[in-house]
């Protein structure tokens, strides 16, 4: 379906780990680096706290893209959390792709507390990608549509 890109505003959920990526987002804010208001951040202690259920839940409720940000591998505050997250998300995303759901709607990005610029750039780019894809229809729950 053709979506009018000028009007379509995607809903993006960003899960950010408390120690690196949330701090990175804070730094982006402190440095006044802009990214679209479509991105809403949910703070989690660690990327390994993010259950695939949460990601599907977001899509069910009408999210058009979900991004998970955590500390760079090796820098996890809890030493190993993001390694587990990495495996889980790789497999989950691969499965979503296997079911024919646009793989570009999901992403994992490692953002350190010092990478405010990377955080903003990542979000800008992700919003752009998802905007191009248009509305999530394959994994939405029609009952949740307004």
């Amino acid at each position, binding site marked *: 379906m053709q979506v009018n890109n000028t009007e379509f505003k995607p809903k993006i*959920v960003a899960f950010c780990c408390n120690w690196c990526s*949330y701090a990175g987002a804070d730094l982006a804010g402190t440095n006044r680096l802009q990214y679209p208001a479509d991105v*809403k951040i*949910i703070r*989690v*202690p660690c990327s390994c706290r993010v*259950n695939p259920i949460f990601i599907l*839940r977001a899509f069910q*409720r009408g999210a058009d893209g979900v991004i998970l940000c955590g500390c760079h591998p090796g*820098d996890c505050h809890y030493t190993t959390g993001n390694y587990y997250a990495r495996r889980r998300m790789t497999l989950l995303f691969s499965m979503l792709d296997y079911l024919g759901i646009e793989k570009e709607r999901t992403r994992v990005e490692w953002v350190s507390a010092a990478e405010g610029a990377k955080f903003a750039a990542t979000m800008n780019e992700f919003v752009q990608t998802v905007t191009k894809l248009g509305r999530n229809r394959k994994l939405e729950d029609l009952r949740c549509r307004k």
Partner: protein
Amino acid sequence: MQRIGVFVCHCGTNIAGTVDVKAVAEALKSEPGVVFSTEYQYMCSEAGQNIIKNAIREHQLTGVVICSCSPRMHEATFRKTASAAGLNPYMVEIANIREQVSWIHKDMKAGTEKAIILGRAAIAKVSLNAPLIPGESPVVKRALVIGGGIAGIQTALDIADAGFEVDIVEKEPTIGGKMTQLDKTFPTLDCAACILTPKMVDCAQNEKIRIYSYSEVSEVKGFVGNFTVTIKKKARYVDELKCTGCGECTEKCPQKKVPNAFNLGLDNRRAIYIPFAQAVPKVATIDADYCNMLKNGKCGVCAKVCGAGAIDYKQKDSFIEERYGAIVVATGFNPIKLDAYEEYGYKQSKDVITSLELERLMNAAGPNGGTLLRPSDKTHPHTIVFVQCVGSRCDDGKGKSYCSKICCMYTAKHAMLIREKYPDTEVYVFYIDVRTPGKNFDEFYRRAVEEYGVHYIKGMVGKVAPQPDGKLLVQGSDLLADEQLRVEADLVVLAAAIEPDKTARSLGTMLTASMDTNDFFTEAHPKLRPVESPTAGIFLSGVCQGPKDIPETVSQAGAAASKVIGLLAKDKLTCNPCVAHSDEMLCNGCSACEKVCPYGAITYSDKEFRGPNRTTLIRRVASVNDAVCQGCGACTVACPSGAMDLKGFSNSQIMAEVDAICK
């Protein structure tokens, strides 16, 4: 139903500049559960905090949402505010409308809309918050140091110096570790024994320090502040309290053919022995593998000559249980076995030796009394070849992938010492790179090359072939000159890689302290918490964490001690209440959570449950130790049944936030 209060902060114009704070407060007022909503210029100011406190009291609020700056900034502040007004501090949630809204969005309308949505998410979350009360656990004011090398000794001395009791468990009959076997130390070339043995004596004499020598840790239970450790004291067949260390027995013992482990088997000792003259404790030990009395009951010479009556052939292993608040791992290293390196002829020729063996050969207390002689024919070597990186920086699967760090420096030291003492000796060093980061290190290396005329050759040795005349033909390449080299050497010294002591792996399992694939203990954070294990209450000292030289080891040992002191100085530990919790009714005992827990905070036990129709079921269920759990949440996702949840970031809370954001 919660009674929620919403407090929107202007942050001067920081927020109010791009967010219509009044509109936000107004919109959030009509959210389910919200009974009060207001905005103010600076919520974090005293006046702002008073608004919150008054509202909590006046409206009997059960939950508070602050729309303000990042929780990383003021979450603690507002929690204290709530607490002061009698509300549980964990009933506070922050909607970050500064860093995530006003500072990054220019459009007032979009900013205000987003701020309302973030506020809704925080309201949805706080509706599901439960009051949390941080637990407390007492701290046993005694530390355990596992390993009595320079790392363990330094840590123990520093802890004792702060007034805390500390025990050292050392598996050998004496403390001192690898450093006792060294001759001189770089880059100062002072004698190892001269700087180490006084510290050993200090340990023995310090009334706060107890030394369990010839002992091992056999079991560890408990958690930070509260470990219970079982120490196995191996039978040494000598009563430590009676033995005076006079050494009479070690001279009279008829069993003379025992390879001397202290000298790496380069000479022999008796079956009853004291490893070296300055051993601490200076107590004899009987080597049960060689003692005739213990093996076949025929001898008893040592018992006869012992004036103190200290010999006890019937002694058995004994077990001691002790409680500790903190544990320091200082298990050290060993050179790797060189069996896989046939090309260097280590097994074929006695004159191919490791660097540590060279230390003993050059040591005044060593097998040759400090004169450097070839092990095979006791002649002076005139050409010596050093081979670097034997087993270090290897990708071939035979050795270690890492750099052993100390070899470049000790080889420069060896070369220098040899050239100084025996100027007629030619010294060649084959190397991949010479790595000399460290204070006065590069100067030291350059002295070896420039002043002492050591031949440094960039290239690897391909083969060391023992010749019929007793020489060793060393074939190597000189990469800089781009030519093949053949050196007829009298002695070849291999800089064997170092690896963690073999006992580390099993100890790591006992302590639930994580290790890397090389069996080095993992630090809690590679940069910020280098002397702590991720497992609370476990600290790391020395090479057990990674290759390092003596000065580095000593400074790390001191750092570990200061962390221990910081812990032991507390009477009670306050635990983070945002920890995992297992619902026993849902847990199926599969152990997935236990496997991903980096802290060993999860244990399993068989519990009785009421089954249907008055039956009793026994089920294996997980439980989380609140004092050990750090609240990462890895377990919550590993758990398929959802039995494991995280307080403060529960499944339902996060999903409520998702719902609120996506709606």
